[in-house]
Structures are given as C-alpha cells and as structure tokens.
C-alpha cells in the first residue's frame, strides 16, 4: 500500500513537472513558428483585426507613406474597427503594397511586419499613419516608433527586424503578389468579401459614412 502510494505520488510529481514542460514546448513551438519559421509563413493573421468568422472581411492594400492611405486609416478604418470589430461583424486585413514612388514605404512596411511578429501591429500601424509627416520626410522610422512603443516592445521589434529580414520581405512580397494578381496599381485598394463574393471599392479611399451604409446593407442580407 505504501509502495503503491509512493508510486502514485511519483507519477503525480512527474506529471506535474512534465505537463507544463510539454505545454511550454508547445507554446514555444508556436512562438518559434511565428518568429523563425521558413519564409513560407503567412503573417496575414498577425496584421489583421477581428474574428475570421465575421460575416464581412475587408482587405486593404496600403502603403504607409501614401497620404490617401493615411486619410483612409485615420478617418475611416479606425472608426470601422471600433464599430464593427468588437461586435464580430468585420474581419479587417492589412495587406502591404509599398509603392516604389515613396522612398521610405518599404522600410516602414518592414518595421510594421516586425511589429506584427512582436504582437504590437495595431499600435505600430497607428503610429506610422498618425506620424507619417514626421518619418515620411526624414526617413527616421525607428525613432518614430521608439517614441510611441514601450522600450520592451521596441526591443522585441528591433530584434525581429534585425534577424527575420528574409521572412519579412517574403511576407511583403506575398502581399504585393496578391495585389498584383488582382490588378492593384494604387493605394489604398480596398476589397470587401461577403458571402463568397469579392467587391473592389473605388480606389483612393472611402468615406466612413458611405462605407458604413454599405456594410450595414450587407449585414442585413444575412
């Protein structure tokens, strides 16, 4: 009986120590998967907001240095995310489409992808658009982000940006290839997916009030 109790206690102790280790290994596996997997890894989910099960998906191909993208983000996208994402109505997907005419937009996209991998994409996107004038003229993207993110987050973003360059470039290239396959030639280019149908919105950004009317109309069609 005593020996049996000892065996049970040993098993419990082993289980107690092994289980967290196994779970930890699992989570480490997934975090490794996020940070250092092969270039085939898709960063889309990390650059998105809301539930993938939402009835409407809005995909926006944008360039961080494009003034119309800034206006769209600040005047429309933010309100859209505040209104429809907590309600589970919209899944908002950011796609990178840095235009060659903007000298710092690719670098900004690299930082944004690094921030996505560090789990701070939303605040980075907000900073890049709201302070576009600041870094757009000087090219000091890192300094601009450092002034907005916490030192710990910035440290993570810097480390990822320095070590995961190939993966970040592959993610940007993948977004651009997708955009080109759809005929995107300017930003912002916005696509609305509803009931399996893709509808491109007129290029050049969209007024929030008009977009809201359209989304509400689509939601009524369920």
């Amino acid at each position, binding site marked *: 009986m005593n020996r049996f109790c000892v065996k049970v206690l040993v098993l419990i102790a082993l289980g107690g120590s092994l289980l967290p280790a196994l779970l930890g290994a699992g989570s480490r596996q997934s975090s490794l998967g996020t940070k250092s997997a092969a270039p085939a890894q898709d960063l889309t989910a990390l650059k998105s907001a809301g539930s993938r099960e939402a009835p409407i998906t809005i995909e926006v191909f944008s360039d961080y240095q494009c003034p*119309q993208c800034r206006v769209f983000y600040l005047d429309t996208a933010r309100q859209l995310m505040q209104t429809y994402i907590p309600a589970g109505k919209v899944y908002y997907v950011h796609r990178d489409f840095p235009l060659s005419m903007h000298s710092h937009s690719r670098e900004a996209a690299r930082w944004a992808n690094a921030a996505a991998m560090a789990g701070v994409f939303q605040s980075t996107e907000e900073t890049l658009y709201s302070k576009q004038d600041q870094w757009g003229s000087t090219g000091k993207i890192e300094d601009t982000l450092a002034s907005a993110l916490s030192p710990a987050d910035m440290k993570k973003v810097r480390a990822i940006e320095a070590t995961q360059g190939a993966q970040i470039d592959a993610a940007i290239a993948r977004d651009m290839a997708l955009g080109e396959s759809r005929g995107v030639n*300017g930003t912002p280019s916005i696509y609305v997916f509803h009931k399996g*149908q*893709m*509808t*491109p*919105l*007129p*290029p*050049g*950004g*969209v*007024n929030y*009030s*008009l*977009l809201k*009317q*359209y989304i509400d*109309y*689509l939601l009524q069609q369920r």
Partner: protein
Amino acid sequence: MSQASSIAMERPRTRSKVGFFLIAARIVLGLVFVYAAYAKLHFNGTWHLRDYYFLFAMGIDSYRMLPLVIVEWMARILPWLELGLGALLVVGAGVRWVGLVVSALLVIFMVALAHAALGGLEINCGCFGNSSVKPSRELMLDAGLLALALAVSVGGFLSHRARKSQA
C-alpha cells in the same frame, strides 16, 4: 442646265451624308450612355439594382468636390438618367433636347475629371463602373463624346427648323 442639275443633285447627297453621320453619332452616343448605366448597375457578374448606389456614391465622393448629400442623390439618379438619355438617343426621340442635356452632363463630367486630373487624385473615374480608366484618359473620351453630342443637338435643331420652314 447640266451644271445646275449637278448642283441640285450634290446638295441632297451632302445632306444625306451629314444626316447619316448624325444618325450614327446619335446611336453611338446613345449606346455609350446605355453602356455607362449598365456598367454601374451590373458588375462582378451580377445585377446590383439594390446596392449599386453604395459603390457608385463612393466613386463620386472620391472626387472630393461635393457634399455627401448631393453625392448620395447623384449616385441614386445618375445611372437611370444615363440609361434614359441613352435610350432616347438610340430610338431618336427628342434628339435636339436630349443632345443638349447630354452635352450639359458631359461638361459637368469633364469639369469633375479635370478637377481630379489637376489635383493629382489617383482615382478611378467611375464613368463605366469597375472598367473605368484614369480621369486624364477619360477626359479625352468625354471631349470626343461632347463633340458628338453637340453635333447631334445642333443637327437636330437645324433639321427641326428646316422641317418647320417647309411646312
């Protein structure tokens, strides 16, 4: 005698050439307007009779010229107006007045397109739905259409006056 008769023969021939050109211009113009309406109401492979307005309103608003209330009204009305005017031109009803309205409409479109082109707006003109081209290129097409519309309208007024004087 023979010279006089050849002149007399020449006039109707010239008139018929002009008349043929005006009929062709009216039909081409009408078809372009009908197609413009069709492209706004039918896209992505299906009719959008209930929701065409949302996307077209976004297109008009991208010109950043008009308050939202007017944008919304224009988006509701314009495709049907284009369809009506185009159909009237094709069947040849009220040609001189329809030609004038179409000319006025084209002038308005051209002002908007020039505003977009000069302002460097990277937008799709929205004139033919999703298959539209850049404002600067559409401006040239509209200039050609305006010439046709004015010719149709002026031709319509002249032939109307000729018929009246004959009566």
